[in-house]
C-alpha cells in the first residue's frame, strides 16, 4: 500500500487539536517517511495508482465499463517529488515554530492548521482526480490564509490573510468552472481519462486559459503577484516557508494540468511562450522590487517571486518545444528538469532564508534593515544559515542553485539567447541584493540597543538546520540528485501516454 501517506495525513490533522508539539513533529516525521517510501516505490516501479473504495486498489475502471468512476490516486514522478518537497518544508517549519510560537495564544489550532496545510500539499500532488484537486486546493488556501493571518494583533497580517483568501477563492472558483466545462463535455473527472478523451474544442481552450490564470495567480507569478508580499511578510513563525511551499505546489498543479491533461494537443509554442514571458516578467519585476525594499522579509518575498520566474522559464522552454521530439531530447528535457530541480532547491533555500528573516525579526523586533547591524556576532548560527541560503539563491557555483540555474541557462540558450541573458542579469541582481542584506544585518557596527540579543532557541536552529542540510546535500551531489529524483519527475511530465495508460489501461 504505497499511498498510505496521503490517507494518514488528514487523519493526523484530526487528532492534532488535542495533542501537542511532540505529536505534531512525530506525525510530520511519519508523513515524511511515508512520502519517501512512496517516492522510492514510484521511482522503482513507475506510476502508482490506487482506486479508493474499489474491491481492489489497482482496479481503476470497473469491469463492464469504459471509464473510471471512483476517485483514483495517481502518483507519478512529479507527484512523488513534490510530495517530498512539501513534507520536508513542513517538517522544518513545524520544528522551527515550536520555540518561536511560545508567546502566542491559540497554539493548538495553529498546529492543526499547519498539519492540514501539509496534508493538502501532499494531497494535491497525489490525486489523479480533478475535483479532488479542487478540494485540496481549498484546504490549502483556507489553512494558508489562516496561518498568514495568525498574528491578529498586526493589521498587516490580517490584511495579508484576507487578500490570500480572496485571491485563492476566486482562483479556486475559476478552477471549478473549468472542471464543470470538462465534466459537461466528457462526463469525466479523472485527469487521465479526460486527457484520453480530450478533443481540444473551443471550450477546452477556454478552460485551459482559466486554469492557467487561476493557478498562476495562486502561485504568485507576475501578472498577479501583488498579493504575495503582503501575505508572506507578516506570516507567523515557521509558516512562511510552508505557505511558500504551498505556492510551489500550485505551480506543480499547473504543470500537471498543462502537461498531463493537455499535453501534445496544445498549441504548444503559444502556451510555452506565455509561460516563458510570465516567468521572465516574474524574474525581473521580482528582483527590481526586491532591490528597493528595506523590510527584510518583504525583500525575500520579492526574491521568491523572482525565483518562481526561473521555474516558469525552465518549464516554459520545455513546453514550447514539446511537440518536437528532437528538440525535447536536445534541450527540452533538460529545461524541464532544470525548472523542477529549481522548485525543490528553491523550496529549501528560500525557506531557509525566510526562516532566517523571521529569526531576525523575532530577536530584534524589527524587519527594517536600516535599523539592524552587527548581528553576525550575536546570532552566529542564523548568520551561517543566511550565508548558505543567500549563496545558493544567487546561483554561486558550488551550491545547488547554480546547478539548477545552469540547466535552465543551457537549455534556454538554445531556444533563444535573450532568455539566458535576462536570467543571468537577474541572478546578479539577486546576489547584489543579498549582499546588501548581509551587510546591513550581520556586519557593521553593533547597534547598542541590540547588544543583549542572544542566539536563537534550539528548535529554530534545528528547523533551519534541516533546510540548510538539504541545501548543502543537494549542492554536494547535484548530479546524483538530478539523476535519481529530478529526471524521473521531468520524464513523468513528458510521458503523458504513460499517465493516461496507468489509469485507462494499455492506452
Amino acid at each position: 500500500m504505497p499511498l498510505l501517506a496521503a490517507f494518514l495525513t488528514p487523519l493526523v490533522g484530526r487528532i492534532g487539536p488535542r495533542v501537542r508539539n511532540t505529536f505534531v513533529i512525530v506525525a510530520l516525521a511519519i508523513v515524511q517517511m511515508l512520502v519517501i517510501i512512496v517516492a522510492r516505490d514510484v521511482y522503482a516501479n513507475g506510476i502508482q495508482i490506487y482506486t479508493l473504495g474499489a474491491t481492489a486498489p489497482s482496479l481503476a475502471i470497473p469491469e463492464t465499463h469504459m471509464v473510471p468512476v471512483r476517485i483514483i490516486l495517481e502518483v507519478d514522478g512529479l507527484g512523488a517529488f513534490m510530495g517530498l518537497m512539501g513534507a520536508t518544508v513542513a517538517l522544518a517549519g513545524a520544528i522551527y515554530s515550536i520555540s518561536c510560537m511560545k508567546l502566542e495564544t491559540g497554539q493548538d489550532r495553529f498546529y492543526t492548521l499547519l498539519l492540514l496545510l501539509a496534508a493538502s500539499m501532499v494531497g494535491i500532488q497525489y490525486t489523479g482526480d480533478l475535483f479532488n484537486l479542487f478540494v485540496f486546493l481549498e484546504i490549502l488556501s483556507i489553512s494558508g490564509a489562516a496561518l498568514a493571518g495568525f498574528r491578529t494583533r498586526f493589521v498587516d497580517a490580517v490584511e495579508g490573510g484576507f487578500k490570500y483568501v480572496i485571491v485563492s477563492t476566486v482562483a479556486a472558483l475559476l478552477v471549478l468552472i473549468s472542471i464543470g466545462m470538462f465534466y459537461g463535455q466528457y462526463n469525466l473527472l479523472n485527469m487521465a481519462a479526460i486527457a484520453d478523451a480530450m478533443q481540444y474544442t473551443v471550450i477546452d481552450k477556454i478552460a485551459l486559459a482559466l486554469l492557467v490564470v487561476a493557478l498562476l495567480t495562486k502561485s504568485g507569478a507576475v501578472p498577479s503577484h501583488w498579493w504575495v508580499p503582503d501575505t508572506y511578510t507578516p506570516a507567523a513563525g515557521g509558516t512562511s516557508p510552508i505557505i511558500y511551499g504551498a505556492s510551489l505546489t500550485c505551480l506543480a498543479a499547473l504543470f500537471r494540468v498543462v502537461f498531463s491533461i493537455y499535453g501534445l494537443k496544445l498549441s504548444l509554442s503559444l502556451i510555452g511562450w506565455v509561460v516563458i514571458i510570465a516567468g521572465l516578467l516574474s524574474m525581473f519585476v521580482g528582483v527590481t522590487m526586491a532591490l528597493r525594499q528595506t523590510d527584510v522579509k518583504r525583500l525575500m518575498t520579492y526574491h521568491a517571486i523572482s525565483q518562481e520566474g526561473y521555474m516558469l522559464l525552465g518549464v516554459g522552454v520545455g513546453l514550447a518545444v514539446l511537440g518536437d521530439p528532437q528538440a525535447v531530447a536536445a534541450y527540452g528535457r533538460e529545461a524541464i528538469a532544470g525548472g523542477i530541480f529549481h522548485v525543490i532547491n528553491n523550496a529549501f533555500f528560500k525557506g531557509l532564508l525566510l526562516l532566517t528573516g523571521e529569526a531576525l525579526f523575532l530577536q530584534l523586533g524589527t524587519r527594517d534593515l536600516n535599523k539592524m547591524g552587527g548581528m553576525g556576532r550575536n546570532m552566529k548560527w542564523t548568520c551561517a544559515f543566511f550565508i548558505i541560503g543567500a549563496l545558493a539563491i544567487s546561483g554561486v557555483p558550488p551550491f545547488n542553485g547554480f546547478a539548477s540555474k545552469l540547466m535552465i541557462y543551457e537549455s534556454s540558450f538554445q531556444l533563444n539567447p535573450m532568455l539566458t541573458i535576462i536570467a543571468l542579469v537577474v541572478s546578479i541582481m539577486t546576489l547584489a541584493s543579498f549582499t546588501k542584506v548581509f551587510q546591513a544585518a550581520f556586519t557593521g557596527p553593533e547597534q547598542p540597543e541590540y547588544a543583549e540579543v542572544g542566539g536563537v532557541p534550539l528548535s529554530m536552529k534545528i528547523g533551519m538546520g534541516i533546510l540548510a542540510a538539504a541545501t548543502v546535500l543537494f549542492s554536494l551531489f547535484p548530479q546524483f540528485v538530478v539523476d535519481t529524483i529530478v529526471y524521473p519527475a521531468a520524464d513523468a511530465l513528458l510521458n503523458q501516454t504513460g499517465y493516461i495508460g496507468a489509469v485507462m489501461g494499455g492506452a
Partner: protein
Amino acid sequence: MSAIVTNAPFIGVAALACVGLYIMLAQRNLIKIVMGITIFESAVNLFLVSLGYRNEGIAPIFTNATGTHMVLPVPQALTLTSIVIGVATTALMLTFIVLIYRHTGETDARKSRRVKG
C-alpha cells in the same frame, strides 16, 4: 439561434457569474466584495447542477421512484461539496473582515488595503 434557446440555463449562469465578477472588481466595501464572490460561487454551483440535468429526469433516489430515467447524481454531489466549501471560505473571509474592522474601524478597501483586488 437555437443554442440561445436550448442553452438558456447556461447563459443565465454566465450572466450571474458576470454580475458576481463585476461586484467583486468594482466595489470598494469589503463586505460587498465578499458578496460578489458569493454570487460568483452560486453561479458556479448552478452551472454544475444544470450540467447534470436530464430532460424529464427524476431525482436520483430509488425509494418510491418510478423508473431509472434520472438526473445525473454526480454533479449534485459535487455541488454539495462546493457549497460546503463555499460556506467555509465565506466564514473565513467574514472573520478577516471582522478583524480588519477591529483594527481600522473601516470596511472600506481604499482605507484598509494598500492594493486593490
